[in-house]
């Protein structure tokens, strides 16, 4: 089953002379449960691909269907709801809410959806990611690896169909990086989710089910 379908997606920044192609006529599909790595040089359009796929940025043209829904047709409110229910993001800079504890950061997407967090599930994720002892800690009291694990836990908390990770190990040392990727892949498999992972690390990329290579906003190998 296709979880992501992108058809002739284009993203253009700027106008006229300053026009830059972020994505140029990109079409691809990703199957449910698949782990996909996206690789490419800096400025090749990897992050743009991830952003439009996750509804964080809107494409200039083209169609993007995620979990059966054409997200290009959603308004801001609908898109927000879709993101918190269907997409889990993991960024290189963690992007945790500084005033919330680990546990609160993890449950935030659920609470935003006006639902009660499934305590058992949240406990399971925290245990899986080794965060039980850090639940009451604030992000600034955690190491980089712990912060990234919290970000992963948050991405998994709402049982999304798609996890999008943008260089999740970029700010970590190699030991912590490998650990985080292992945890991420493991969690995704355990929970039967789909993972799209951007990385510069070719070894990490090879561990994925499929590698998508991107250059100058175009997919050169899928």
């Amino acid at each position: 089953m296709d979880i992501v379908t992108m058809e002739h997606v284009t993203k253009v920044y700027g106008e006229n002379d300053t026009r830059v192609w972020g994505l140029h006529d990109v079409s691809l599909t990703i199957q449910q449960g698949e782990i996909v790595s996206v690789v490419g040089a800096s400025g090749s359009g990897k992050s743009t691909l991830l952003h439009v796929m996750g509804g964080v940025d809107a494409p200039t043209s083209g169609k993007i269907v995620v979990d059966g829904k054409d997200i290009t047709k959603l308004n801001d409110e609908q898109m927000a709801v879709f993101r918190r229910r269907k997409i889990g993001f993991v960024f290189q800079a963690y992007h945790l809410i500084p005033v919330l504890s680990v546990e609160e950061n993890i449950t935030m997407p659920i609470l935003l959806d006006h639902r009660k967090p499934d305590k058992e599930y949240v406990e399971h994720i925290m245990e899986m990611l080794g965060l039980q002892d850090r639940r009451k800690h604030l992000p600034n009291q955690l190491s980089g690896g712990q912060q990234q694990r919290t970000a992963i836990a948050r991405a998994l908390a709402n049982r999304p169909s798609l996890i999008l990770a943008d260089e999740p190990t970029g700010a970590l040392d190699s030991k912590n990086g490998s650990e985080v990727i292992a945890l991420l892949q493991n969690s995704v498999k355990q929970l039967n989710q789909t993972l799209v992972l951007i990385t510069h690390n070719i070894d990490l990329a090879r561990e994925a089910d499929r590698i998508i290579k991107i250059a100058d906003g175009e997919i050169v190998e899928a």
Partner: protein
Amino acid sequence: MDNYRKLAIRYLNMNKRRSAIAIFGVIVTTVILFTFLNVMCGLLENERKREREEEDYEMVFFLQSEEQGEQILSDRRVKSAYIGPYYEWSYNTQNEELVHANTLYVNVTQPYRINAIFNDICQNYGVEGEINEYLANLYFQGTDEEGMVAAALFVLLVAYIFAIFGVGIVRNAIQLCALENIRDYGNLRCIGASKGQLKSIIYFQGAILELIGIGIGVVLGTIVSYIVGAVFHMEIGFHLIGVILILIVFMGDLYFTMGENSKLITGMSPLSAIRGEYRIKKEKIKLREHNLFGKIFGVDGDYAYKSLMRNRKRFFRTVAAMVFGIAMFIGIAGAVHSINEIIKEKLAEYRYYQIYFEHRLGPGKSIEEVQATLPSAKQLERLTQLEEVTEAKRIYSCDIWLADTEDYYQHYTEEFLTTTYGGDAMARIHEAYQSASEIEGKARRLDALAAIECYGYDETDYARYESALVEGTLDISDHGIVIVNQGKMEKAEELTETLGIEYVQVAITDYHVGDTIQIVNMERFGDMVQTEWERLDKEAEEREEQLRKELAGNEQEFNQQVEELEKEIYLEKKIARYNCWQELISQGDYETYTIEGIVNADVNRSGSYFRIILPLEQYFAMTGTDETMNTGMQFHFDKIPMDKNLSVICNEILWGDMDINSEIEYNGLDYSEYVWMIDELMNMKKVIFFVLLIVIFVVLMASLNFINATASNLHLRRREFAQLRVIGTSKERLVKMVLLEGVITTVIANILGILLGTGLCIYVFYFVNLINKLEFHFPWLASLGCIIGSFLLLCGAIYVPMRKLSQSMVEDLTTGGD
């Protein structure tokens, strides 16, 4: 680009609107401050000129020799001098007395050093002298130097407060600009810009905004000063000292605040700047448990509270500033509202005919005598023609005399006799009357016990009492009367809790409908007393003539004897009146009137006392008068009279051309103090209104600063907002979540501010009440306005920048925030 300062102008041009707002803020503060300083300087200059026209010398020296004078004259510090006698006002003789004949009057070249130069000259040339204290004070010299210095320091303080507002706006604008372009500063650092060069960009931006604002502000302030001068007929001029002072305080303050701003960019490494890591200091965020707001508003409230608490200092500073502003506003508004209510209450006490001039008829007073004391027809006509006067009517009033004073006294209520000043006086008079064994003792006090005020009203005025009727009817029989039996009366002195006059509402008598009052035949009584008094007056004239002959040449003795004679005749008249009254009673020449109506307030005129009111025809019949025998005029105003002519005419009526301080001989004319009361209250209102304007200005300026500061803080958090949006918060919801922070702040600030303001007001009123009983009225409307205003301010300050947050989360995630 040859230097980094050009960047400053480019940054300012990048956000012209913000720069314009900052300049506008500086202009407003400068206009107000410069006008204030310029007018103050103008007034000081005018006063110096006026004083020099009267006494053009700064100091005097009492010369002992010609040589001494020449030595002083040759002193280079002496600008001009002349010799003459020196007089001083003597309070003992109430005249000017010569102090020294050969006195050197001196003006010096440096009037701001009068004290030092005077002491120096005295010491150097061994001479004594005096400083022209008043003129010296005008140069911040003399013995009262401290007072003038304190006044000057107050002016400086005002200037500094204004500078804080003016510079505060610029500070926030530059801070926001610095944060927006933080990456540029990082780049500049990377390519070799020194901290000093970056600092100069910040300082230059601040200086540009400040100087443009000050320049325009001074020009506008000069125009405003001239307008103020023209309105108040003063010569104000242009005083450079105002500009210098503004430049010093504004630029001085700017130096320090721009220092703070430049720390923003110089305190971070080039790398952090490029990464968009704005904060110099890491926030020390504490873990907070779920809170009340979380319970009420769910996750949104929880987040809002935690966001506020991430920087407790800033939150408490914001709340404190708001609490202070709200408290000040509520306090002043409370005072304005209370004074308004007091004005309403006070004005309502003046009833329908707010202004009157009357002289009641009475036994011994002919209508000619009474009317001679009334304002002239021309004065009354001028009053009638005032725009606000909607009704002017003749007054018919008379003191009627009771036949049985004891019966009447027994009807006084205990409350009246024991709690009011008038009742207490009446009880003492009654006691003295009863215990007086001689006729003189009784005659002296009879009028206080027997005379009652009686007013006759036409149909319209009489019908007005219907609203105050508490018993019986106004439709009375030929021998019926209506009494005014209640009033707000001056409280007995020993019962007052304040230093001022207090009032108490009392029933004066316990009369009821059906009770009777006996009144002597007033027409006959008047004639009898008139005849007796004319006889006594004639006798006085003859005796005065005889004294003049006997004491010719001894004026002092004559005056003394005449004074004694006047006192004797005055007493004789009282005795004669007493005898006439006794005669009427012994002859049974009095009539019994039945109380057929009782009203609890005099709706037509101020003053509270037991009165009889009658329809005109019955009044004429009871008092033996007719419609030509009016005893005054009364005026009704539909709105508060603002025409200055009113007080001019009223003052003229009462004091004519007399010196206001001279002793006024009471001629029996009774009048309401409405005009003076209005003047007093309006002046009080003007002062408080002025204070309110200052508070509003301060609040507005603070609000402008607050808006800018909020925009800066939100700008710092834009990465966090992007994070929230990424995890599924819609823009609308995010705005609501952040608005909740404003709501929490406003709710707390309003509760504390209103409580503090009200407490402050009650506290002030407590002390005011020790002097005068004034009731505090809570300013409901102002409080509502304050709540709405602060909500709009805070929520607006959050909503507008939040709506303008970049649509692209990606941009904020990669560059913005911390």
